[in-house]
């Protein structure tokens, strides 16, 4: 059976063009970019070229990009970096209750170190209200962190509006753009952000590489110590092949973005419509319009998410419950709970995320298979009877 992969929000395959661009940097051009001789300078050039490509994708200057090991590191770096560098100015951080764990857990870590964190609520679509941000700001607020779009429910947050509020308040503003980079326009000046987290493997680049955009003059402490790399902000020998791959992925994403958005939005809406028509007691989670072009998140009442995922896997269809990171946790999704869902509804969520190789045929296959699976699981669900 042909495998149907619908979990592009968890990770994407690396594009063949990207792999090709990387290969030479494992074997021939293996020099350390910090070395003075020519084969070191060659890889230094490759890193700087990649930096330029990533910067171009977000409208930043080259020197404002710091390569990291991925999105999680970028989030950790941004939040701890600003918090520790600005302790003398204040100890208050504002974030939302639906952030990725890389943000939430970092904030919790800081709470144990004397920082005060406000976790703002969201509405039933998962949207943060900019007015809530305004209300939450105090004289001690040093950082605001709100994700560009939710990895789980696909809702796109009003980042530009929040950016203005942050600027007026004089607080640094960070956004996790891991799910949007390369998929919808991301411009650091239009969004008004000071820090922005990126990950290569969500846009057909390799795993193990990401970046943090740091606006010029943003005060933050280095993430790693022990070398001159990345303008002393992140010591460690550069992951040259990974960085080259990230640059290539960024370069390829830009010209394809509009076409892909249109194609994926069509497929996304076909899937949503088909699921609602074919499976009763099913709801779309997240905002119907302010939504990533590739995200479909639904709650299927009376059945549990993992049992649907396993059944779909037996049919060679790869999807996830909520986010991939929470798949081994027993807790219902913190995102859906924050949106006001009951725990059993939150346990019955499924996330489909579409991508470059998703076809109309794939969507038809899901629509043919899932109703059967849900019927089978509902037949054994003790919840259904009590709701009749």
């Amino acid at each position, binding site marked *: 059976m042909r495998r149907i992969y619908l979990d592009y929000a968890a990770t994407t395959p690396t594009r063949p063009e990207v792999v090709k661009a990387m290969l030479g940097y494992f074997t021939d051009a293996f020099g350390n970019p910090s070395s003075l001789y020519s084969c070191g300078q060659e890889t230094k050039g490759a890193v700087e070229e990649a930096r330029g490509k990533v910067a171009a994708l977000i409208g930043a200057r080259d020197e404002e990009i710091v390569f990291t090991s991925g999105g999680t590191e970028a989030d950790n770096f941004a939040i701890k970096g600003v918090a520790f560098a600005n302790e003398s100015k204040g100890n208050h951080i504002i974030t939302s209750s639906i952030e990725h764990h890389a943000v939430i857990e970092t904030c919790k870590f800081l709470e144990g170190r004397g920082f005060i964190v406000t976790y703002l609520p969201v509405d039933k679509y998962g949207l943060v209200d900019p007015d809530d941000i305004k209300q939450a700001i105090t004289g001690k607020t040093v950082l605001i962190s709100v994700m560009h779009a939710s990895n789980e429910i696909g809702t796109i947050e009003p980042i530009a509006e929040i950016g203005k509020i942050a600027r007026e308040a004089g607080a640094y503003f960070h956004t996790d753009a891991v799910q949007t980079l390369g998929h919808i326009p991301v411009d650091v000046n239009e969004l008004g952000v000071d820090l922005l987290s990126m990950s290569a493997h969500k846009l057909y680049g390799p795993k193990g590489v990401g970046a943090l955009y740091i606006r010029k003059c943003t005060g933050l402490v280095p993430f790693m110590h022990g070398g001159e790399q990345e303008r002393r902000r992140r010591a460690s020998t550069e992951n040259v092949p990974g960085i080259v791959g990230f640059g290539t992925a960024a370069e390829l994403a830009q010209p394809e973005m509009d076409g892909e958005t249109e194609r994926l939005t069509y497929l996304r809406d076909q899937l949503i419509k088909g699921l609602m028509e074919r499976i009763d007691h099913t709801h779309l989670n997240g905002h119907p319009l302010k939504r990533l072009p590739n995200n479909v998140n639904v709650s299927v009442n009376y059945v549990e998410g993992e049992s649907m995922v396993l059944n779909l896997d*037996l049919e060679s269809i790869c999807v996830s419950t909520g986010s991939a990171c929470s798949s081994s946790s027993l807790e219902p999704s913190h995102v859906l709970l924050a949106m006001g869902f009951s725990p059993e509804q939150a346990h019955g969520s499924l996330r489909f995320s579409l991508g470059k190789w998703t076809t109309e045929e794939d969507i038809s296959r899901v629509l043919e298979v899932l109703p059967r699976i849900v019927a089978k699981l509902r037949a*054994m669900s003790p919840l259904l009877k009590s709701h009749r």
Partner: protein
Amino acid sequence: MTKTQPLYSEKVMEHFNNPRNVGEMGNPDGIGHVGNPVCGDIMELYIKVNNGTTVDSKFKTFGCGAAIATSSMVTEMVKGKSIEEALKILKRAVAEALGGLPPIKMHCSSLAEEALKSAIEDYLSKSKGE
């Protein structure tokens, strides 16, 4: 490529895919209802008892793969057993019969044990009243 490491054993997947004894039971002699929606697993287990022997058992479960497989397995294990023997079916035995469970899913086998105990207690309290 290295071999994949599946989350569940073949036996778990087999029971998950073809669960035995699914459904409600007309006039059961005992019903066990355990779990809660917060943890994501709810089990309902029914038993039919004849002359002190469990002659039939059925279940309905809302939960993950392990919850469904353990429900299926425990209903198979209890059939033909006396009430005394049925009370000795412990979570470990259910998990072992399924070829093991991942550590994070061991609570599902506890839930199966509890569901069975709860059904037996229900049966015993009813038969005492008669």
